[in-house]
């Protein structure tokens, strides 16, 4: 069964009199439990695609179905609900809140959940996730006190907080050294083994080679869609 259906998704940016087609008609399906790598040169439209997948942005045209929702037709509150429950987004720039501790960052999605967990259950899950990403003893540190790799692992723990079926990662290792990148990739493979659907943007062919499927993008179009 398809978890994600993208059909003829377009995104155009107009700056003054110039229109840029960041996505010029993208169609693909992603099934449950797939590990998909999205690859392509800089400026090819990968981030635009991920933002639409993550319900952070809306396409200019085309239909996007996620599970049983027709995302293209949803209103702002429902999109917020999907971002909270169905998708865990991992950014290249980590995007942690600097004034909160690592644990507080991980717990942040609970604040916006309609499904109410007790404070104790939330904290227990937060501890468990911090342990899972190997940062059990860094829970009360602030982001500035952590390395890039550690911050990205906190961001992954945060993405997992509401136990979403889909994890979207937009160049999560783009700012990391090879050791940090390997740790992130190991966690991602681990999550995939646990049954998560993973869409992973990368420049790195060795990472791409470890994915089940690679979708290649160029100039806002899918130029290749291969299964390894």
């Amino acid at each position, binding site marked *: 069964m398809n978890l994600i259906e993208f059909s003829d998704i377009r995104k155009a940016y107009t700056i003054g009199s110039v229109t840029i087609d960041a996505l010029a008609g993208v169609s693909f399906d992603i099934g449950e439990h797939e590990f998909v790598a999205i690859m392509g040169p800089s400026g090819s439209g990968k981030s635009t695609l991920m933002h639409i997948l993550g319900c952070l942005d809306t396409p200019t045209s085309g239909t996007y179905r996620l599970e049983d929702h027709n995302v293209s037709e949803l209103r702002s509150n429902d999109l917020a609900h999907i971002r909270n429950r169905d998708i865990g987004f991992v950014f290249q720039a980590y995007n942690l*809140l600097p004034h909160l501790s690592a644990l507080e960052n991980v717990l942040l999605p609970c604040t916006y959940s309609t499904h109410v967990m007790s404070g104790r259950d939330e904290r227990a899950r937060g501890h468990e996730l911090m342990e899972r990403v190997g940062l059990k003893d860094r829970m009360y540190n602030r982001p500035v006190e952590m390395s890039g790799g550690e911050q990205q692992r906190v961001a992954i723990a*945060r993405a997992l907080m509401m136990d979403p079926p889909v994890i979207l990662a937009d160049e999560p290792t783009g700012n990391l050294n090879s050791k940090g990148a390997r740790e992130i990739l190991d966690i991602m493979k681990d999550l995939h083994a646990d049954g998560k659907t993973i869409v992973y943007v990368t420049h790195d062919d060795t990472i791409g080679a470890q994915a089940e499927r690679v979708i290649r993008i160029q100039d806002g179009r899918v130029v290749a869609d291969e299964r390894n």
Partner: protein
Amino acid sequence: MDLRDSFRNATRAIWAAKMRSFLTMLGIIIGIAAVVMLMAVGNGTKQSILSRMQSSGSGNLYLTAGARSNVLMGGNPEGGAGGFAASRAGVSSGAEITTQDLTYIEARVTYSVVVSPTNQTNITIKNGNTTMSGTGIFATPTYFQVENVTIADGRMISDGDVSNRTRNVVIGNTVQTTLFPNESAVGQLIRINGASYKVVGVAASKGETVGSSVDTAIVLPFSVGEKSFGIAHNRVQRTTIECVDPTQTKVVIAEITDILTLKHKKVDFTIQDVAAMTALVTSAMTILTALLAAIGGLSLLVGGIGIMNIMLVSVTERTREIGIRKALGARERDILVQFLIESSLLSVSGGVLGIVVSVLGSDFVVSRFTTTVITGSSILLAVGFSIAVGVFFGVYPARTAARLKPVEALRYE
């Protein structure tokens, strides 16, 4: 997002920018303190005027020369010197009340009344090297009855003092403590405007603070006024008429008006009862208090604009945070509430501090100059106002924040 989280977030954000938050609050602190303190002055003035009126008896009527409607100018029951100056200036030479008028009224009025004629002038009082200024009240023994002035020590002015023009006086409590700090004044001689008088009694304090009071006054026999203080023969500046049955004041006013109009052939005098004056004072002072509150409200408005300004800055600075929160599932409403709570918290804390400042300020500073009364309703008004200011001036910045598109907010550097 539950409210407890929102409050914690808001306090955190406010605390993170302590100096800026405090400066923003300062606008509200000043605004609220101004509103509460100015209202306290208005209410205090009203209360002290009213209590002074009511302390002299609800059955009292006040008869003064000149047909005037403005009670505040001439109808003040104990008649400050200013009031009399104004009445003298505003009344034509023919319009005056004389002791003959009063005898005429007493002979004809059918209800039981007590008539107390008084004249008043500013005097200088001296004992040895101690000098003070005060009010000289020229009165008959009925004065003590109608104005509810009791004698703490000695006796009051007697009919004999009045008919013999004896230089016997009753002094107010403040005069006693100022001129004779260590002994009773009764039996002592004092000098008033240079001449020698004998103190026969000391009036009990009435503890009033606004305008003239019996505490700083000396009561002299009525007849001494024309003999030694240049007051025109038989002239009465002001007469208090006590109705023995206080429920009949309206009828007595009508009757005395008829009697005196018959004698004067025109209405060149004013008679008012306490109720009428109370109503007038109350409405005048309520308007004054509202006006004062409105003036304070202006600075509150400025404080509110300060909050709006700082919230707009805060929204801009935290655009990325808003994007992150939205990416994690925050709805527009969550962001709106977050910023509204923050702005309200700023203005309510400012309001509470403002109330503290105004309570301290009016207790320790303003009350030295005038009576202040901080009412529960002015506190409620202040709290209500500061919540309203926080919400009103917070809505625009909060809506701006709530409506940011997640991807655009995240892109913000």
